[in-house]
């Protein structure tokens, strides 16, 4: 009985640890490959890209997800990029969806695959101020599909306007929220400004 209890305990710990590693298998697939330079960026391709990131979680400072429709590491410590959780944060999701460069002086279009771990150089506040060659400030009342609303702490992209005057916003807002589409009223909120990417091709 004593042998059973001892080996049982050791095996539980080892098997549990091995299984927990499965949560990090997605991280093992994250990479740092070069993006694909593109001549086009359309608003509906951006809608599809951001929509596919839904359910993939949130990671502050992160930018890698795997399209398995669940957060592979849902209990990672909030606010710690070294936790290697799945998902982007608000500005990382926007950066990848808008096909931006890691060099803030480049305004070209770079397609980043979901598993390419990249956050980009911009904070939500940077986007709000139109910082970076691809970005610029727009009037909130005229902001359209896949433009964005940004505050000093958050940015979300306009999936589509809505009948009641709010907007469907695709965003990665917090660890508990994950990445998803929510109805928001950022457009009329004084703490938010309108921001857009230059160079949509359709």
């Amino acid at each position, binding site marked *: 009985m004593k*042998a*059973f*209890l001892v*080996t*049982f*305990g050791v*095996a*539980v710990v*080892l*098997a*549990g640890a091995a*299984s927990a590693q499965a*949560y990090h298998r997605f991280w093992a697939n994250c990479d740092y490959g070069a993006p694909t330079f*593109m001549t*086009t960026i*359309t608003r*509906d*391709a951006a*809608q*599809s*890209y951001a*929509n*596919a990131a*839904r*359910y993939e*979680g949130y990671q502050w400072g992160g930018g890698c997800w795997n*399209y398995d*429709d*669940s*957060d592979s590491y849902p*209990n990672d410590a909030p606010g710690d990029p070294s936790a290697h959780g799945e998902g982007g944060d608000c500005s990382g999701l926007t950066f990848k969806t808008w096909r931006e460069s890691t060099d803030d002086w480049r305004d070209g279009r770079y*397609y980043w*695959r*979901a598993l390419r771990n990249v956050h980009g150089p911009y904070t939500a506040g940077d986007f709000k101020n139109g910082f970076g060659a691809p970005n610029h400030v727009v*009037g909130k009342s*005229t902001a*359209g*599909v896949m433009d964005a609303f940004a*505050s000093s*702490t958050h940015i979300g992209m306009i*999936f*589509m*306007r*809505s*009948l*009641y*005057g*709010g907007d*469907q916003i695709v965003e990665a807002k917090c*660890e*508990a*929220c994950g990445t*998803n*589409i929510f*109805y928001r009223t950022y*457009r*009329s909120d*004084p703490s938010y*400004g309108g921001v857009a990417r230059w160079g949509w091709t*359709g």
Partner: protein
Amino acid sequence: MRRPGTRSLAGGAAGIIAGVIGGIALSSVSAASGPARAAPGLDAVHVPPVLTRPGEPVTLRYAIVCAPSDDGEPCDGAGSVHVRAGQSGAFEELALKRGEDSSEGRYSADLPPEIASSRAGFSYYAILRDRSDGATITVPAGGADAPQRSVPLRNVTEIALGAHVFGHDRAPDTRVVAAAWGSGVGEAGLAGSRELGFVGPSSFDVAADGTVALLDQVNGRVQRWTPAGIKATNVEVSGGLADFALEPGGVLDVLEPPSRTTPAPVLRSFRGDGTPRWAQRLSDRTWAKLAAGPTGPVVQQQPSEQWLPVSEHGAALARAEQAGDGRPGRPFAGGREVVVERVGVGELRLAELSGDVALRSWRITSTTPLGEVQLAEPHGSHLVVVMKTYTEDRSEYRVFVLDRSGLVNSFAVESLEWAESAPLARFRLAGSSLYRLGSTRTGLSVDRFDLEVPR
């Protein structure tokens, strides 16, 4: 060192096997408590023209949203609209055209003038397809049983507001609730940080007797302010920005947003003592507003842009049943419904329907941008409307009391929004009073504005 006996070896082997199974099982339990599987799949967006002006050309536009391809190109979509003049009869199929611009939806169909200008309006639904894998989606999900319904604005009451002058807010008549931030009874929960922003109680409702019920989701409870005192009732909610409605009889409805652990929105129904009755996933992926309808809770949802019932007479409705009863307006007693459409930068269209016929309609225009409509409800022979008006760095709410002749009463209300709440949960109408949920650095408030006294 003593050689291990057969029993020891057998016990050790059994321990290893049991331990491995146990370890994996424990991890599996942990994983199972994570997010439920749900795939975004093929999706669509469409803003239906629910209220049209006579002679107005109508183009129906759709965005088709597919899984991204590694070439970064947009969805290879197709589809058709099934449309008819009026609100009953056979549908005619129109193929959607694929355009060069996707800013309002790449796929479109121009309605023939005889349909767009029909005196009975028109109704339609779309079947959209991803040509890469053949997947289809019907919008709205109710299809031919609950199509989009568009009603013409006839004999519309026009109201031109001009430019809004900020800073002339009406003070409330009474502060009904004043709660400091905290977790004690009578206090209101606050989550977040200066860096990430703050979230306070996400919604509230007011009973016919004036009882104010506050969804204090940060503290996992509903608090009720009555003349007899404050009562707190614990409810099992996620803590996300939920909407809330108090049904007659005391049932508590909490409309949860998607979250890391529950990726689809869910309506939770609780008895008055906080014990759960049922939880039901919504038909659509996104919600804008929850309200207590004549036969149960109703939710304005996307992509359908319809009001869908989530339960009837206390029983939850399956998703297909919800979709099969979608309507363009929020239902009220007596078969009436109120239809809302914000158009462009500064236009609001409103209609009160009986069946599919507009009894009264209004068109409000403003040179200052108009924001979201928080509330549009009948009040006696009037319609009460609360909506935001804004510039780049300012905002206020405007309250309109309307009748057939136009504005009966209007005033501006300060938007006290230091902490975030659910999007369209800032105002409630009860009796002849309007209630506002507000927040500042020091705490939460519910203020009452009496509507009977013209100002």
